[in-house]
């Protein structure tokens, strides 16, 4: 029988450790006190834009919204266009922040100081399983943003499935990825609410900060990161305390980096595969196998030329943009992505959308983005763009793009040409566009 509601957290006792902050462990009681207090401080309105950088603040913000019937919005970026779109779709939107300041002109609430903890134990609030807790957003293959509603029942199942696969219960988790991004949301926040893990409040960035954050929490402990951050951490030669597992997602990880990480940190490295629409779907230990192992109740089924995911925490039947090859009911090989779809640092868009934004800038006569294919492993790929825009400067174009697209997709380099090598049918063959950049790089030494 499916329950009608589920508790905010399955941490079993009032003194269970939910999080680690700079001043020590946070018990379930202190967490619940913080949640109750913040929920009272929210102004009227049903939608919260939670931009808290401190991971514990994010957790409390999400939880306070959930227990007070509010929806947390988790957009992929905070460009002016994104904020305007969210404010138009949800006019009662309030920004919850913790020191970075509000976003745009939205009404805002600063995260409050810790709530006093009373002498009695606090009951764990129950939340209806069909209540919408979060809105997450996808670019869609055409670039038209799609909104996905995540219900409490699905998020709880998601956290439990991930925790079970990783064996994460009882672990302290240090994340280098934002809590607002789907991967960080699932792998540091959800598995802390349901899955028995405890998150570290920090969002360490520099290698020495990552090492310090790990040293500040007891074992068993794990690092939730990306290939890029992992490479930086290994290259920096800082002393990292022993780990119990390492989690990586958002981009393919080279086998070499996986081996180096396992050797340096003395722990298995697990990769997660998923997307915003579905959340995580599969995992693998990269040094042992190329095959992805689906989470226990998740299934793939053919859908046209591609596949769709269903079961477990996946709501409905969700088409996948990647090219997968199932090898049995529980395993598949990932072959890659549609050439038009782009995934950089875990953020997705399409070339069609980017080209539309570029060509839509007043003064731009023609323009095209190129996804280079010669970047070394475990580095972040940068897009390139060529533009025909006689009256504009690089600065003009980048400033105009910055309003509409995530900065990670800004072109580097942006080159100015007299015309693009379009063929008679007005199509722009990729090889010809690539040749344009190769010629440019030959004249400039580097086109990174």
């Amino acid at each position, binding site marked *: 029988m499916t329950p009608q509601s589920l508790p905010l957290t399955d941490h079993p006792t009032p003194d269970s450790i939910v999080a680690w902050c700079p001043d020590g462990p946070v018990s379930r009681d202190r967490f619940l006190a913080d949640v109750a207090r913040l929920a009272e401080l929210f102004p009227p309105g049903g939608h919260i834009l939670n931009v808290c950088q401190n991971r514990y603040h994010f957790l409390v913000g999400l939880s306070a919204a959930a227990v007070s019937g509010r929806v947390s919005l988790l957009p992929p970026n905070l460009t002016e266009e994104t904020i305007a779109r969210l404010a138009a779709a949800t006019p009662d939107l309030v920004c919850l922040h913790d*020191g970075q300041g509000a976003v745009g002109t939205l009404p805002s609430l600063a995260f409050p100081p810790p709530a006093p903890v009373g002498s009695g134990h606090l009951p764990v609030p129950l939340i209806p399983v069909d209540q919408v807790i979060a809105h997450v957003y996808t670019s869609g293959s055409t670039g038209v943003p799609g909104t996905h509603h995540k219900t409490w029942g699905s998020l709880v199942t998601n956290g439990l499935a991930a925790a079970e696969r990783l064996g994460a219960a009882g672990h302290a988790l240090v994340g280098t990825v934002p809590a607002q991004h789907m991967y960080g949301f699932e792998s540091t926040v959800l598995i802390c609410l349901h899955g028995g893990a405890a998150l570290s409040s920090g969002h360490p*960035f*520099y290698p*020495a*900060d990552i090492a310090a954050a790990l040293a500040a929490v007891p074992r068993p402990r794990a690092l939730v990161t990306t290939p890029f951050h992992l490479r930086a951490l290994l*290259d920096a030669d800082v002393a990292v305390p022993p780990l119990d597992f390492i989690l990586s997602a958002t981009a393919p990880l080279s086998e070499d980096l996986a081996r180096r990480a396992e050797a340096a940190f003395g722990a298995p490295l697990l990769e997660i595969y998923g997307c915003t629409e579905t959340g995580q779907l599969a995992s693998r230990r990269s040094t042992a196998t190329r095959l992805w192992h689906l989470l226990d109740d998740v299934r793939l089924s053919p859908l046209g030329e591609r596949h769709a995911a269903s079961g477990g925490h996946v709501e409905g039947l969700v088409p996948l943009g990647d090219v997968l090859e199932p090898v049995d009911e529980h395993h598949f090989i990932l072959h890659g992505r549609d050439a038009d779809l782009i995934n950089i*640092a875990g953020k997705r868009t399409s070339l069609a959308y980017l080209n539309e934004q570029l060509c839509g800038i007043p003064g731009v006569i023609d323009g095209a983005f190129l996804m280079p294919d010669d970047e070394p492993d475990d580095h972040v790929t940068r897009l390139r763009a060529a533009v025909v825009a006689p009256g504009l400067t690089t600065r003009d174009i980048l400033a105009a793009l910055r309003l509409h697209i995530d900065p*990670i997709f800004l072109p580097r380099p942006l080159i100015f040409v007299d015309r693009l090598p379009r063929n008679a049918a007005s199509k722009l063959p990729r090889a010809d566009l690539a040749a344009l950049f190769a010629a440019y790089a030959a004249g*400039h030494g580097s086109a990174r």
Partner: protein
Amino acid sequence: MTTTPTDAAQTPPPSIADIAEIIVTALGLEMTPDEIDPDAPLFGEGLGLDSIDILEIALVISKRYGIQLRADNDNNTTIFSSLRNLTDYVVSQLEA
């Protein structure tokens, strides 16, 4: 480039021009080091760097000067608020 700790200890403190050179070289920027305004923001608008660039630059600085950059608060990009601020930070870490 790799340096031994001994080399790092003998490297003189960087000038603004030295750090500008690191930024341009590490990121392959199409500008000369003296085109970076020492007081303009490096992050976001201004020079237009993002957190990925900052981590790349931090790695080069740590190798060359034998110091590890640390964020003193939740805002990881404070050190990179300007070229001058970044240079001052590196010099202060070398003197510490």
